[in-house]
């Protein structure tokens, strides 16, 4: 009700003697502690944890929730992140006791349903993307990239191609792409985007040489544009002996319309938390399954689920595998949700998802380019990038506009990315919109443009309706306070 100060920290709210939970207590005959664990190992330092009742914990996390904003609270056109609606039934399914209560190391015979599900999920992802085989192990998109690059590396080394140490990455790529390449020890060579916002074969050509291990490409790319020359590009890379990796973060644009496998990509990661509606959870957990074409399948992480007449098994004996890139079998709970989402749509539904996502983006682009600068003025796919206000005299920058949006109850788009667009605002409405919602967003964006002109101070000092005003990020970095 009243705009409150921030909720006290758990530690500040702690009162000695309070209990929030009574755990089960061992009922075996008592033995002195020292006989169980030598004194020298035991804690001398006091255990500093907060002491609260269940009610206080509940009110604390309720008030934190009230100071947070998710897709369920309103429009969230955060570009590249595909903040679509997360159907409620998905939560139910991942919480079934027959899934949630499974220990990862149970005997295979006791987890046949789980193995069947994982195996089927791999098949479905292959079908949707046009790839041959999938691993479900990666924990997120960036982790999928790492996995894919390890696979490329393993393949190269097996072929004795030790000189291929370079990965080509467009300048519009997400930061995880170069970071992942570096993690595997690749050099990163940046390929510039053409004035049309895509990679042109002509631009690419000079970068092609025998050191190239491969190309990482996001398609549609982070400008929201489909790489039209994709067939030529993948062929060019293949011709010089490289692999083409697809950052599948933007798959939401092309479900049922185009399959990365058919474009010539050799590997891809999916972001289940984007395309397939698993909730983002405030930043995770996601899942980043990786699909490959046949020639790379033997490098996939172990174990793989295999189906035999006697049932499903974990197969470990794969000598070419890159090994394990994560404990156990991936984010099982997330995979359940993604598969359940997909199965509720089917082919036709998935295709409609992309149709609507692309339609919504183009609708916004058409209306917003009247007042905002649209650097790549062409029909977009599922998202588009504006470059600040058209009014070039304006002192209002993209950060101000984002903070202004907050005061209208809308989550701002991704800002200052991709790096190649000055004052970038990357807008991705997703298919989870109504016409009324889109129109009201346009109205708000136009109102911001008006404010920028007529009352710039209102935007410079935005937001005003939030529990805190604009926060000093520089101070946070200069004097890091990272714990209580």
């Amino acid at each position, binding site marked *: 009700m009243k705009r409150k100060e921030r909720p006290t920290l758990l530690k500040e709210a702690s009162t000695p003697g309070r209990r929030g939970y009574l755990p089960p207590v061992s009922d075996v005959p008592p033995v002195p502690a020292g006989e169980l664990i030598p004194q020298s190992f035991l804690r001398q330092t006091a255990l500093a944890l907060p002491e609260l009742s269940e009610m206080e914990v509940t009110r604390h996390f309720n008030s934190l929730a009230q100071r947070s904003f998710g897709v369920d609270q309103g429009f969230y056109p955060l570009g590249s992140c595909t903040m679509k609606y997360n159907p409620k039934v998905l939560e139910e399914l991942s919480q079934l006791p027959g899934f949630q209560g499974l220990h990862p190391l149970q005997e295979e015979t006791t987890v046949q349903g789980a193995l069947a599900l994982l195996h089927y999920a791999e098949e479905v992802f292959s079908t949707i993307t046009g790839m041959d085989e999938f691993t479900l192990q990666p924990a997120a998109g960036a982790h999928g990239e790492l996995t894919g690059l390890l696979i490329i590396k393993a393949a190269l080394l097996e072929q004795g191609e030790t000189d291929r140490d370079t990965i080509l990455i467009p300048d519009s790529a997400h930061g995880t792409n170069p970071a992942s390449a570096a993690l595997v020890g690749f050099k990163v060579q940046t390929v510039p985007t053409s004035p049309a916002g895509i990679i042109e074969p002509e631009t690419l050509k000079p970068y092609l040489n025998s050191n190239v291990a491969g190309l990482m490409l996001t398609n549609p790319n982070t400008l929201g544009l489909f790489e039209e020359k994709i067939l030529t590009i993948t062929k060019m890379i293949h011709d010089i002996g490289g692999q083409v990796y697809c950052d599948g973060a933007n798959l939401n644009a092309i479900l049922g319309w185009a399959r990365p496998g058919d474009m010539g990509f050799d590997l891809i990661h999916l972001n289940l938390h984007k395309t397939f509606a698993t909730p983002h959870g405030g930043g995770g957990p996601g899942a980043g399954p990786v699909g490959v074409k046949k020639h790379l399948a033997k490098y996939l992480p172990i174990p793989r689920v295999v189906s035999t007449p006697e049932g499903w098994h974990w197969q470990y004996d794969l000598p070419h595998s890159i090994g*394990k890139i994560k404990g156990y079998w991936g984010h099982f709970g997330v995979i359940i949700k993604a598969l359940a989402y997909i199965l509720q749509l089917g082919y036709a539904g998935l295709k409609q998802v992309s149709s609507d996502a692309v339609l919504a983006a183009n609708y916004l682009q058409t209306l917003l380019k009247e007042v905002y600068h649209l650097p790549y003025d062409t029909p977009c796919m599922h998202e588009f990038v504006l470059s600040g206000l058209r009014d070039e005299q304006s002192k209002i920058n993209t950060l101000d506009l984002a903070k202004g949006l907050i005061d209208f109850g809308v989550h701002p788009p991704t800002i200052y990315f991709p790096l190649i667009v000055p004052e970038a605002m990357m807008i991705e409405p997703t298919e989870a919109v109504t016409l009324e919602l889109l129109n009201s967003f346009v109205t708000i964006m136009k109102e911001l443009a008006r404010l920028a002109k007529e009352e710039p101070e209102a935007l410079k000092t935005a937001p005003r309706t939030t529990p805190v005003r604009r926060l000093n990020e520089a101070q946070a970095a200069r004097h890091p306070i990272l714990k209580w």
Partner: protein
Amino acid sequence: MGHPFLPLTDEERRQMHKTIGIERIEELFKVIPSSIQESAFFDLPAYNETETVKLFTQWAEMNTPASKMVSFLGAGAYEHAIPAAVKHLATQSEFLTAYTPYQPEMNQGILQAFFEYQSLIADLTGMDVANASMYDGPTALAEAVLLAGNFTRRREILVFPGLNPEAQQVLEAYTRYTNLRLKFLSPTAELTAPPASFLNEQTAAVVIQNPDFFGQLVLTKELLTAIKEKGALSIVYVNDPISLAILEPPGTLGADLVVGEAQAFGLPLSFGGPYLGFLAAQKTFLRSLPGRLVGKTTDLEGKEGFVLTLQTREQHIRRERATSNICSNQALCAIMATIYLSLLGPVGLQEVAWSTVRNSHYLFSQLTRIPSVKAYFDAPFFHEFALDLGTLPPDFFTKMKERGFFPGYDLSHYSPPLSGGLLLYTSELRTKDEMDKFCAEMEDCLS
């Protein structure tokens, strides 16, 4: 097409077409080469919600979950009692459906929760700072090792015996193509004595799991001091952080980096994921840390607030020179752990820890009375221990399952020579009665 996940109606679509100036949706996709479009079809029927629930329930019911058995399976994933409030509070839609709080003013709640998580982990491990989460324990370890390599500019990583095999394999995969060399110490070495012998000028870091994979307590101040003296970093891997409730924290003992798996803090077993990696460090490493960090700051009116900070380490800005590539992480799992810890408090967490210790020692003493059963080790252990059962009867695991037990982790999976070996874990959920019955069945089964 009217579908619950697709709000737009045909009429709205028509209006939008008009505004954009197209007749048919295909026009927006014409940039996609037609050959690609033609091969894009696949055959996948749609299920309604009821059918979907039925299908997944069938899959779920094909499994026999450990949670419904009397289970002694641990070996890296630990069943503990989870307060009902954890799920209720963590799955509030404001947490569940938000993304990384890039806009701090709009997501102070989530940021405060991360700040509290960081603080709790730092306190528990006795370290200066913790990040806002890693994918899981194994990847947290791998990233800590990469950090150590970059930080020390040395190349050799010594790994103590008794590292969780999942963590070991992930570490191998992460480092295989780097310039780091992993050296696995053999269990026979005199590891508790100052390890001067196996450290050298090239040692970047020493990795020690405590309690180790076999439940044994191996971490001492002397060991960490010896490592420090050689200029190497010590990385302590904690697989069940419940142990931190009663063991002296690695940070106080002198560890440089403490990483591990925090699934035990309120996360369900869930067949291995999603779990929660944590990474804590001495402040020297602050600007080398992977992952997100939340910091406290003030707003333009001087009011306290929280923001993502030190982002210049991250790939958004630094790209190939970033300290790591991690982007989406385990945010919601970190919130769950924070809720778990606030509910348990110091007394509750110590009760859990001591209960697991008491139970495991009781079970150990009972099982080792069975003539054919021998302990593999005699070092002090926490809540897990390894037994040599001799030659296992055929179908041992199936038989025990039929009697309602998951008897533990078959060590022959870990290492074929350990066939007949069993690693047992007892949580606070186990009762004396269950354990007595288990011993009787074991005796019966093994004789």
